C-alpha cells in the first residue's frame, strides 16, 4: 500500500508515473486520479470515443499494481450479472442432501409445531455465502488490498442498473436481501465509470462521482502521446500527422478521428516507411482515420490543402480553404 500512497502523494508525481506507463495526461486528468484516491470517490469519465477513457482506468490499475476488475455495461445488464448470483445447481444438490437427512433431523419430533422448531434449529445454509457466486461488483468489494473497478460505458445500461450502482458508489457496500450487507474490505476499490454520452446519466449517479471530461488533446499533448505510444516514428512526420489530424477535427465529419485513430495512423505510416506526408499517401491511408465512406468523400477535396499545410515546417500555413 505504501507504494500507492507514495505515488498519489502529489499530482505531479502521479503525472510522472502515468508518463512512465506510457499514458500522457493533462493536469486535469492527474488531479482527478489524485482526488479519487484521497477523497475515495468514483470518477465518471466522459468524452468523445477514443480519447483514452478506458485506457486511464487500465493504466491506473497497472501503475498502482492493483487488479483491474472490469464490467462492460450493456442494455439488459442486471444484478444477477453485475453483483451476485446464486449457485443454483449446488443449491439443488443441497436440497437433495437435506431431504435425505430430514428424517434424522425430525426423528422423534412430536407434532407439527415441534418439527418446525427442530427445522429452525437446524442451521439453514441455503442462502449463504457458500452458494453465492460473486459477479464483478461484489468481487471488487471483496478484494483484500483494493482494486481498480472499471464500469465501462455506463450509458449503455438501463436506468434500473444505474440505481443499483448508487449504493456501491456512495458507500462501497452491497445489500443482498438474503444475507445482509457486504462492505468493502480495508481498501475500497478505486472506481472509474466511462460514458460516451449516448444518453444523459442520472443526476443521482453524477452527484456521487467526480466528473472528468476528457476532450480531444491539443497539438502539443497529442504529439507527446504519439511519441509515447509510437516511439519509432520520426519527429518531423509526427508533427505533420498531428497537425493534419488537428485540422481534420475542425471539419464537419460524422465521426471525428480520435487519439486511437491517430495512433493507428502513426503505426500505419511507420509500417509504410513514410518520411513525410504527401496527398496520395494520405488518400490511400485515409480509411485508417475516417470510418465512414461519406467522411472520406467529403475530406477528399481538402486533402491537398491540409497536407500542404501540415508539411510546411512552421505548421501555420495561410488559412486558405479549397
Amino acid at each position, binding site marked *: 500500500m505504501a507504494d500507492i500512497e507514495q505515488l498519489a502523494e502529489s499530482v505531479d508525481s502521479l503525472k510522472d508515473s502515468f508518463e512512465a506507463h506510457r499514458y500522457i495526461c493533462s*493536469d486535469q486528468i492527474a*488531479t482527478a486520479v489524485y*482526488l479519487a484516491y484521497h477523497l475515495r470517490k468514483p470518477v465518471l469519465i466522459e468524452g468523445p470515443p477514443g480519447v483514452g477513457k478506458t485506457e486511464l482506468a487500465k493504466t491506473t490499475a497497472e501503475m498502482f499494481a492493483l487488479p483491474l476488475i472490469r464490467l462492460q455495461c450493456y442494455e439488459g445488464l442486471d444484478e444477477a450479472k453485475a453483483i451476485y448470483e446464486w449457485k443454483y445447481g449446488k*443449491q439443488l444438490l443441497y*436440497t437433495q442432501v437435506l431431504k435425505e437427512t430430514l428424517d434424522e433431523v425430525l426423528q422423534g419430533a412430536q407434532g407439527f409445531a415441534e418439527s418446525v422448531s427442530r427445522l429452525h434449529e437446524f442451521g439453514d445454509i441455503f442462502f449463504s455465502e457458500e452458494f453465492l457466486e460473486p459477479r464483478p461488483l461484489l468481487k471488487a468489494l471483496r478484494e483484500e488490498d483494493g482494486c481498480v473497478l472499471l464500469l465501462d460505458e455506463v450509458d449503455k445500461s438501463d*436506468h434500473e442498473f444505474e440505481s443499483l450502482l448508487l449504493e456501491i458508489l456512495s458507500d462501497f457496500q452491497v445489500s443482498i436481501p438474503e444475507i445482509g450487507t457486504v462492505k468493502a474490505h480495508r481498501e475500497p476499490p478505486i472506481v472509474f465509470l466511462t460514458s460516451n454520452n449516448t444518453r444523459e446519466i442520472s443526476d443521482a449517479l453524477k*452527484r456521487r462521482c467526480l*466528473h472528468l*471530461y476528457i476532450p480531444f488533446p491539443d497539438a502539443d499533448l497529442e504529439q507527446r502521446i504519439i511519441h509515447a505510444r509510437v516511439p519509432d516514428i520520426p519527429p518531423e512526420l509526427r508533427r505533420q500527422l498531428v497537425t493534419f489530424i488537428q485540422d481534420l477535427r475542425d471539419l464537419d465529419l460524422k465521426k471525428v478521428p480520435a487519439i486511437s485513430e491517430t495512433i493507428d495512423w502513426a503505426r500505419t505510416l511507420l509500417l509504410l516507411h513514410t518520411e513525410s506526408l504527401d496527398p496520395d499517401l494520405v488518400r490511400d491511408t485515409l480509411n485508417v482515420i475516417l470510418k465512414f465512406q461519406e467522411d472520406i468523400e467529403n475530406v477528399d477535396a481538402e486533402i491537398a490543402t491540409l497536407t500542404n499545410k501540415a508539411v510546411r515546417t512552421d505548421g501555420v500555413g495561410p488559412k486558405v480553404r479549397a
Partner: protein
Amino acid sequence: MDRTLTHFIAALRNAEVRISPAETLDAMNAVGLVGYRDRAFLKDSLALVLPKTADEKETFDTTFDQFFSFEDLAGQSVAVDGDGDGEDGEGGGEGQGQGEGLGGGKGSPGKGKKSKYAAAEEEEEEDLGPGAMAEPRSALARLLMQEGTTELTMRMAEAAEEADLTQIQVFTQKGLYTRKIMDAMGLADLVREIAELRASPQVPERRLGQELKRRRDWLRELVRDYVERQFLLHADATGRRLREDLLQKVKLSNIEHRNFRLIQEIVLRMAKKLAALHSRRRKVFKRGQLHVSRTLRHNMSYDGSIFDLHWKSVKVDRPKVFAICDVSGSVAAYARFMLMFLYSLEEVMPKVRSFAFSSDLAEVTELFERNKIEDAIAKTLRDYSGGSTDYGQAFQDFRKLCMDEVDNRTTIIILGDARNNYGDPRTDILKEMYDRSKRVIWLNPESRNTWNVGDAEMRKYTAYVHQAEECNSLVHLNRIVGNLLRAVA
C-alpha cells in the same frame, strides 16, 4: 474560508450549474485537501467536483475566473503606486507588466489614472515636489499607504460582506453598495484626516494629504469595479429568471428575435426534463409465453417444483412521431419552436420524422439529422415557407410520400391554423390518417374562438383528429408534449 466557497457555489448556482448540498460537502473536502494556494490546482479540483456536464464545465470556467479575480486588484494597485511616486521606477515597471499580464485588469488601470489626473487638474494642486511625508493616522489611510494591496483587498472583501453585497439585485443599487462598502471601510475617518492634513501648515502633512486624496479616488474605482463584478455574478441571474418566466407564457409569435437564444435554452431545458421523466421504457408482458430458464432458476429454491412462473416480456419500442408543420408566414414562428422541442426530445423519441409545407409538402427529417437544430429550422423556413397555404395539397403529398408507413404505433402531430384559403380541405385524407395511426393531434396556434372564423377549416378537421389543442406558448407546448409522451410511451 468556507464562506468564500459557499459564496462561490451560490454564484455557480446563479449561473445555472446545479449543485447539491452533497456536492458542496465534496467541494469542501477537496478544498481541505488541495488548499487555496495553487490557483490552477484548485480550479482543476473544483472542476471535477462541482460541474457535471460539459456545458456546466464551461460555465464553471468563466464563473471561477470572475469570482477569484483578486489578483487583478493587486496588479493595478502596484501600477498606480509606481505612477504616483514617479521615482520608484523599478516598482512601477514591474507593476505595469503585471497589470498587463493579468487579462482581466487591462481596462481598469487606465481608468484609475485618468480619474487621478482629472482630479489633479480640477483643483490645481500646489506642486510640493517629492520628499518626506507625514505618518498616516486612520486605519484606512494606513492601509492605503501600504505597499502591497493584499490587506486592503481583504478589508474590502470584509466590508463587502458587512454590506451584504451578495444580496444585490438590480443595477441601480451599484452606487448604493459602493458607498456602503466605502463607509464600512472607514471613509468618514479618511475624509476628515485628508481635510485636516490639507489645511496643515507643514509641507510633509500637505503632501500626505494630496497623496491620500489621490489614493482615495483610486480606491473608489476599485470598489466600484468589485461591486460591478459581484453584481454580474449574483444579480444577473435573478433578472434573467424573471425574464425566463415571462418568456414561457408569452405568445411565441411575439417573441423578439433577440430572445431566441434564451428561448432555445428554455426549450432545451424543458425538453430535457420531459426526457428524463419519460425515458424509462415500459415493459409489456407477452401473455402465455413462459420464460423457461428464468422460471427454472427462480424455482430452484423451492426444491425444483415449479409454481412461481415467469413470463417473457418485451420492451416496447419507442413511439414513431410524424410532425407535419405548416410553415407559411402566419404559423412559421410556432413551427420553429415546435420543431425545436421535438428534436430536443431525441433521447426519448428517436423516430421523429418531420414534414414542412405551405402549399407543397416535403420531408425535412434529413435536414435535421445533418444539421444543428437551429440551422435546420432556419433552412426549413427558408425553403418551404413561400407560397399560399394549401392543406389539401399538403395532405395529398403526405399520402403519396409516406402514408404506407403510418401504423398503429404512429402519432401524427399537425401544427397549423387550418386556414386553407377556401381550397378543398381533403378531409378524406385526414380521415385515412386518423384510421391508420394511433393518434392524430392538431395543434392550432390561434385561440379557440377564432378557429372557425373566415377561411379556417378547423371544424371539419377536428372531426378526424383525436385531440385538437390551442398551442401558442412554451407552457402549452410543454404540457402537450408531456401528455403526448405519457400517452404513447
